[in-house]
């Protein structure tokens, strides 16, 4: 019979105050197979660890149970101690008698009884643990960054500058994301394009970065250190190497469609360059608007293209890449128009969202930086800004705060005043959230220097009347009804995960929270990791955030990825699924439930890819024949734990 040692920690009085540790140690000493049982004031201290090490050596212990705090805290400490005494790390189990016992109970007798059961249960488990060594796998020292906004650009540059190859995939024709659409950025009011374009250029010139725009990730397989990615490269029908950006094609193109870069405030041709500084600098033929790729259908653009850059025969292409880590920076979209009909958005031309207003303010925008009403191109004299449109509204819209709207609305009001000196800006708000370096001062500046009028309250009605947009609301501070005859209304609509993020998350097998933002592995301690190892998150894909935060997270994610890529081999937890081939009938139910595609059928039996398996055990509960189980938490172990927990 295996020789087990039990070590019960007092944790000062944290445990010993409620659990009679002496009694517990005595009871455990009687337990079958326990040849050593002692208690000590701080097991995690050096002397405490030495007790364990000495006992393992002297009493020739096969395994140990440490009854102490939660395994999330000191499991590694004690497993390392066990290892240094010459036993396998998995021959050490933790019985959590602090967080799940001494700290939540008062009655000493009952708490002691419970602590004894918890510890015995750990003894029954550890006695049946297999000694395992981490699974080692080689690392493909390249990374994939999905999304070419500021976060993706930053991650890609950080990785590339550290010497690792990066594949940067962006689904639109140019990188730059939403940031390239902005006019100025808070709280410094520097020009967004001016600070972003150098980075974009760096990306395009970087020898370590393989930029794939107009491309989408189709399929991801493999595991940390060894992902295989299939990327769909959509045809642009323009050879970027030949294109001279002469713009002749777009001049002859008969098709006019809404320009997404200006959020519909302007139009563009079917063959177009998204914006002058686009990277890669080339034209793209958008076949959605194009009358046809055959010369008989139209063919005007090809006719005028002197360098013969236009190639109607270009086909979609699937590119396969192998990478060791993946950073997902898919960003955000604004809350759909349809959801915001109550504010007349989409119905009245002069009700705009924040990004449209950015374009109006932008020197490269449709009005060349003049703020004019889209309806009649007149300068608006009264502008109402409304915050929290769709955010912080659990009943009807999004429950969360979109975080950046307070700041950009202050900026919008300020920019408006800078353009229209005799205009008046009103801001309807619930509260002002301006945490951040220089943020509060920025808001104060808007009020004090630019005379922005902040109205605390909600807007009840917006309607058009004689060329004005009537805004009815309440100022909850004064209790007065407010009616403004506005020339323009700007809505700070909620930030949503970008369209397609859900589909991508499913392909990547990373979790999403209830709002559709990608889930980090731990809200505090692992904020840039996803739950799938080797995949990291940055930017607004994870939660609403502003540029500095997105950049910081992007660099953080890059650093995490580098931590993987800089190693020769990776180690994977060996507590993975194991198949009893004698029992397996090959029904494939486990294959269906595996969240990681770690299981597959081969010759009528299931096979485990140990590197993909995360050891969740869903397969084991699904299998009708107990043919698959997770090492070191097998049904037998659980069975024994159940028995002992119930006193037998």
């Amino acid at each position, binding site marked *: 019979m295996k020789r087990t040692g039990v070590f019960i920690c007092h944790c000062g009085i944290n445990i010993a105050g409620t659990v009679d540790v002496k009694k517990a140690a005595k009871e455990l000493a009687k337990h079958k197979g326990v040849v050593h049982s002692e208690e000590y004031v701080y097991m995690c201290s050096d002397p405490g660890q030495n007790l364990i090490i000495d006992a393992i050596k002297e009493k020739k212990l096969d395994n140990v149970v440490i009854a102490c705090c*939660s395994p999330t805290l000191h499991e590694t400490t004690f497993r390392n101690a066990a290892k240094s005494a010459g036993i396998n790390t998995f021959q050490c189990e933790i019985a959590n008698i602090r967080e799940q016992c001494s700290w939540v109970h008062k009655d000493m007798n009952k708490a002691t009884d419970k602590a004894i059961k918890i510890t015995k249960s750990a003894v029954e488990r550890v006695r049946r643990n297999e000694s395992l060594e981490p699974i080692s796998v080689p690392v493909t020292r390249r990374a994939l960054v999905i999304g070419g906004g500021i976060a993706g650009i930053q991650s890609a540059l950080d990785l590339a500058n550290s010497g690792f190859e990066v594949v940067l995939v962006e689904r639109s024709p140019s990188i730059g994301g939403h940031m390239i659409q902005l006019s100025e950025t808070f709280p410094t009011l520097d020009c967004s394009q001016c600070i972003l374009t150098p980075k974009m250029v760096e990306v395009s010139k970087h020898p370590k970065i393989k930029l794939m725009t107009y491309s989408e990730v189709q399929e991801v397989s493999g595991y940390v250190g060894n992902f295989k990615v299939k990327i769909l490269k959509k045809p642009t029908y323009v050879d970027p190497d030949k294109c001279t950006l002469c713009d002749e094609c777009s001049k002859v193109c008969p098709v006019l469609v809404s320009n997404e870069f200006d959020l519909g405030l302007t139009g563009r041709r079917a063959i177009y360059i998204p914006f002058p500084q686009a990277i890669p600098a080339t034209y793209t033929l958008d076949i959605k608007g194009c009358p046809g790729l055959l010369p008989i259908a139209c063919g005007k653009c090809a006719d005028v293209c002197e360098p013969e850059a236009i190639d109607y025969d270009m086909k979609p292409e699937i590119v396969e890449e192998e990478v060791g880590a993946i950073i997902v920076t898919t960003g955000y979209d604004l809350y759909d128009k349809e959801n915001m009909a109550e504010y007349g958005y989409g119905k009245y031309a002069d009700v705009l969202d924040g990004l449209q207003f950015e374009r109006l303010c932008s020197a490269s925008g449709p009005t060349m930086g003049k703020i004019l009403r889209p309806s009649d191109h007149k300068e608006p004299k009264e502008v109402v800004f409304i915050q929290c449109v769709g955010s912080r509204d659990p009943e009807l819209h999004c429950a969360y705060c979109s975080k950046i709207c307070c700041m950009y609305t202050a900026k919008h009001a300020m920019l408006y005043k800078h353009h229209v000196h005799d205009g008046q800006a009103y801001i309807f708000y619930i509260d002002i959230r301006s945490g951040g370096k220089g943020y509060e001062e920025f808001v104060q500046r808007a009020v004090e220097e630019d005379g922005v009028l902040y109205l605390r309250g909600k807007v009840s009605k917006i309607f058009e009347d004689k060329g004005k947009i009537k805004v009815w609301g309440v100022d909850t501070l004064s209790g007065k009804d407010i009616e403004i005859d506005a020339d323009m209304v700007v809505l700070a609509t909620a930030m949503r995960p970008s369209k397609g993020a859900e589909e991508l998350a499913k392909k990547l097998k990373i979790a999403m929270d209830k709002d559709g933002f990608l889930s980090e592995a731990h809200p505090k301690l692992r904020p840039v990791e996803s739950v799938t190892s080797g995949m990291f998150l940055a930017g607004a894909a994870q939660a609403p955030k502003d540029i500095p935060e997105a950049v910081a997270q992007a660099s953080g994610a890059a650093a995490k990825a580098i931590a993987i890529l800089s190693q020769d081999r990776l180690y994977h937890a060996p507590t993975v699924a194991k198949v009893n081939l004698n029992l397996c009938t090959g029904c494939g139910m486990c294959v269906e439930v595996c969240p990681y595609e770690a299981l597959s059928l081969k010759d009528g039996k299931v096979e485990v890819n140990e590197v993909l398996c995360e050891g969740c055990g*869903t397969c084991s*509960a699904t299998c009708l024949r107990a043919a698959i189980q997770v090492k070191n938490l097998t049904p037998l172990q659980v069975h024994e734990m159940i028995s002992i927990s119930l006193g037998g």
Partner: protein
Amino acid sequence: MAEEFEPKIVAFLCKWCSSAGSDLAGVSRMEYPPNVVPIQVMCSGSVSPLYVLSAFNKGADGVLVSGCHPGDCHYIKGNFYARRRIALVKRLLDFIGLEPQRFQMSWVSAAEGTKYTQIIKDFVQELKPLGPQTKLRRDL
């Protein structure tokens, strides 16, 4: 005077959410009755119906299976399989006449120490009037 009946409860807690939530209850020094012995499993999706039946067979007065909220599963979707499986087991146990209060499932996130505390308090309160579970307990 006879001692008050103290139900024995086995709680299968998933490592990442419910067990962490239970840890949080401890860290926050909340108090709840000591009737529950927790068994940490990797995922609620790994809780086999056999575990539940076995716990009742070995004399549990109540069984709790607790996992991450939908969408929060550390293993992406294990809790969805658990939800289906446990629904079936629960219906079946109700059908054979086991008191429905005896078998519970909950979603407890790592941040929900308070919720975990409340669930245990309620569970113990609901089990007390029922007395010991003898229906499925082994009568060997």
